């Protein structure tokens, strides 16, 4: 019973069943999806050893599903994140309306993602790609009326992406006559150089849309903001990785070895780096926590793209490691924002503050999240960042590493703002009665949080499957040990030592400071503070959250002024207006139409030599 069709069937059937159950026996709804995803997780885990490829054909297309080490890496990520997100959503979404719709689309997009990673031919890949697109679209517009225009933007960009992919598929098909990945990878070199370049560019564009690569990212912040938190976790954590999945395949299975490969690498690496830099800048000035995280997501994906594009074993390891880590920490962060939203009803960072004492576990998750994002040891983000920098420096991308480092440092700004505005700062009256989120939300968050520590200390746990995936991608090898990382110049970092020393000092200092003069300390409220001699009254709002980084904004000057979003809107409007003029050919006058007909006939007669090669 362990095979890919069973897996897909299970997920899609669970989606449908959940939809039906919602309208008949609502109790079963959550149980169905959670049981399904659990079984699916087991199946995914067992897949590599169990199955040979599944072959059948639809029409004239041969369909082939199979497991590779590369797809397994993503498959596991999807399964794990979905599992946690679904458990979380069983509490988060409780009592919301249209849950049948929600769970159905949720499951469909999970199933579609499995389909994408296990597809061994382009037709089924595209098929699932589209299902993923529309199911995620459905969830983007799920929440409210305002989400509609957001959804439309998402859909337009997805359509552009999907059609780029489709065009590439079609070019490949017309060139090679086969859409089996194995055949394509083997024979790609035989196509003409223009076709190859077109395919690579189109595919990267297509996959780039989903991974929010600039300048194709404009849909992401709003779409992430509008989708319900458990789904946002998947959206950013797993779904965006499908773009990475595709870009990886394109780069190493198609582009590698072609004459233009170095240029593609260089350009893509810079796109990734600039994506990281600018999205970080944008993230700094957001007021909505989810939008902030969305921009952060875009930035992190930028690192990953850069890592893939560099194409050295170490950089690919870094990229794939960051892929997994990003999946984990971004889900954590979105889930914790979701928990705040669940209790306070807002994700606006200017509206809530001082939640740390009300929601300590959520804070803890967010804290681990931001430390991981920042790449500060000892949590998991560090290993990825370290490998990325080392690989960039050692492959002579000096300025790239500066840009990346710049982005990464600037990331501290928004990360601090994120956690400060929501959890720290003044406790306010409005949030007085806020309680910690329910257990079913806390537990998934905490498990993910702890996992970042585990992967921070033992990155080898992840590097094992990653090196398998790299083997599939092109025989890339990079030495690693369970908790020791090496760079190409012979340096190494021993994460065990690092973590032991950090942990040791931390714990000793903690004990010292706690034991010293220990007694029952009186907790003072956040109003009871040193304010240069003035005693604040209870009504004064002392929160410093609005325009938190005004000085930084001033320092950046007009860098952020030009907006791609506006450009797109403008272009869109311009196009639509021109369409508007075009349709005036339909004047409404029957006689005019008749003249068109006669005119057309005359043209055909008069220019028949030109058109048909025969003069009349």
């Amino acid at each position, binding site marked *: 019973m362990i095979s890919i069709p069973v897996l897909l069937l299970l997920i899609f059937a669970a989606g449908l069943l959940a939809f039906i159950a919602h309208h008949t026996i609502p109790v079963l709804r959550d149980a169905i999806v959670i049981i399904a995803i659990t079984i699916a997780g087991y199946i995914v885990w067992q897949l590599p050893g169990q199955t040979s490829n599944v072959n059948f054909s639809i029409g004239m297309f041969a369909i082939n599903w199979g497991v590779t080490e590369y797809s397994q890496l993503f498959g596991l990520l999807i399964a794990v994140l979905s599992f946690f997100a679904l458990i979380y959503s069983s509490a988060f979404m409780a009592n919301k309306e249209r849950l049948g719709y929600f769970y159905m689309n949720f499951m469909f997009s999970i199933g579609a993602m499995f389909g994408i990673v296990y597809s061994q031919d382009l037709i089924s890949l595209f098929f699932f790609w589209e299902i993923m697109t529309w199911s995620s679209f459905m969830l983007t517009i799920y929440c409210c009326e305002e989400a509609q225009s957001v959804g439309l933007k998402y859909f337009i960009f997805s359509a552009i992406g999907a059609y780029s992919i489709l065009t590439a598929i079609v070019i490949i098909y017309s060139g090679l006559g086969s859409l089996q990945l194995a055949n394509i990878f083997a024979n790609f070199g035989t196509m003409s150089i223009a076709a190859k370049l077109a395919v690579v560019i189109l595919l990267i564009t297509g996959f780039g849309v989903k991974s929010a690569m600039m300048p194709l990212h404009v849909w992401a912040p709003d779409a992430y903001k509008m989708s319900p938190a458990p789904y946002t976790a998947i959206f950013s954590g797993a779904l965006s990785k499908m773009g990475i999945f595709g870009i990886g395949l394109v780069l190493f299975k198609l582009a590698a070895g072609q004459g233009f490969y170095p240029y593609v690498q260089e350009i893509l690496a810079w796109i990734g780096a600039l994506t990281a830099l600018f999205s970080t800048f944008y993230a700094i000035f957001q007021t909505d926590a989810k939008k902030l995280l969305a921009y952060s997501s875009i930035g992190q994906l930028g690192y990953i793209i850069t890592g893939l594009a560099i194409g050295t074993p170490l950089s690919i390891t870094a990229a794939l490691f960051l892929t997994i880590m990003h999946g984990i920490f971004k889900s954590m962060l979105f889930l914790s924002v979701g928990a705040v939203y669940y209790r306070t009803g807002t994700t606006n960072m200017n509206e809530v503050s001082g939640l740390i004492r009300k929601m300590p576990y959520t804070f803890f998750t967010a804290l681990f999240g931001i430390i991981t994002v920042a790449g500060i040891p000892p949590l998991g983000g560090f290993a990825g960042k370290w490998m990325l920098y080392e690989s960039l420096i050692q492959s002579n991308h000096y300025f790239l590493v500066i840009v990346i480092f710049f982005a990464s440092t600037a990331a501290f700004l928004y990360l601090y703002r994120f956690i400060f505005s929501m959890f720290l700062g003044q406790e306010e009256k409005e949030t007085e009665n806020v309680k910690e989120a329910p257990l079913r939300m806390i537990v998934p968050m905490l498990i993910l949080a702890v996992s970042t520590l585990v992967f921070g200390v033992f990155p080898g746990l992840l590097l094992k499957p990653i090196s398998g995936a790299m083997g599939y991608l092109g025989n890339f090898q990079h030495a690693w040990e369970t908790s020791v990382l090496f760079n190409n110049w012979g340096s190494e970092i021993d994460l065990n030592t690092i973590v032991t020393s950090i942990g040791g000092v931390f714990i000793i200092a903690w004990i010292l400071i706690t034991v010293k003069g220990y007694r029952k300390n009186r907790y003072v409220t956040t109003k009871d503070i040193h304010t240069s001699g003035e005693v604040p009254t209870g009504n004064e709002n002392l929160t410093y959250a609005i325009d938190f980084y005004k000085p930084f904004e001033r320092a950046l000057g007009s860098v952020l002024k030009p907006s791609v979003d506006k450009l797109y809107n403008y272009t869109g409007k311009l196009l639509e207006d021109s369409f508007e003029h075009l*349709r*005036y050919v*339909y*004047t*409404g*006058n*029957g*006689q005019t139409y*008749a*003249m068109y007909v*006669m005119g057309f006939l005359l043209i055909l007669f008069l220019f028949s030599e030109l058109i048909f090669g025969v003069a009349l």
Partner: protein
Amino acid sequence: MIYYITAILLILIGMYAVLTKKNIIKIVIGLSIVDSGVNLLLISIGYIKNGTAPIFSVKGLTPDKMVDPVPQALVLTAIVIGLGVTAVALSLVIRLYDHHKTLNIDKIRKLKW
């Protein structure tokens, strides 16, 4: 030859009416004229000067003296159809006049773009 020229002239006259006259009744008339022209053209194909009906039992009638009967059959059908179309057209004209109180085709263009 004269038949061909006449027929083509009829078609052109009809087209001219359809394309330039603003009154929809005139347009319908134009359509009828085109129809007639086409029918005339059609029947001219089978026509043979001094020919007669292709009745094989008539003695001494050679095929080169026979008028091709097929175009005639076709024309009969075409005339009937043309009549039908004209009838529908005229009923529509009545309807249009009822609603718009005008027969000027330039004024009857509520549906556009």
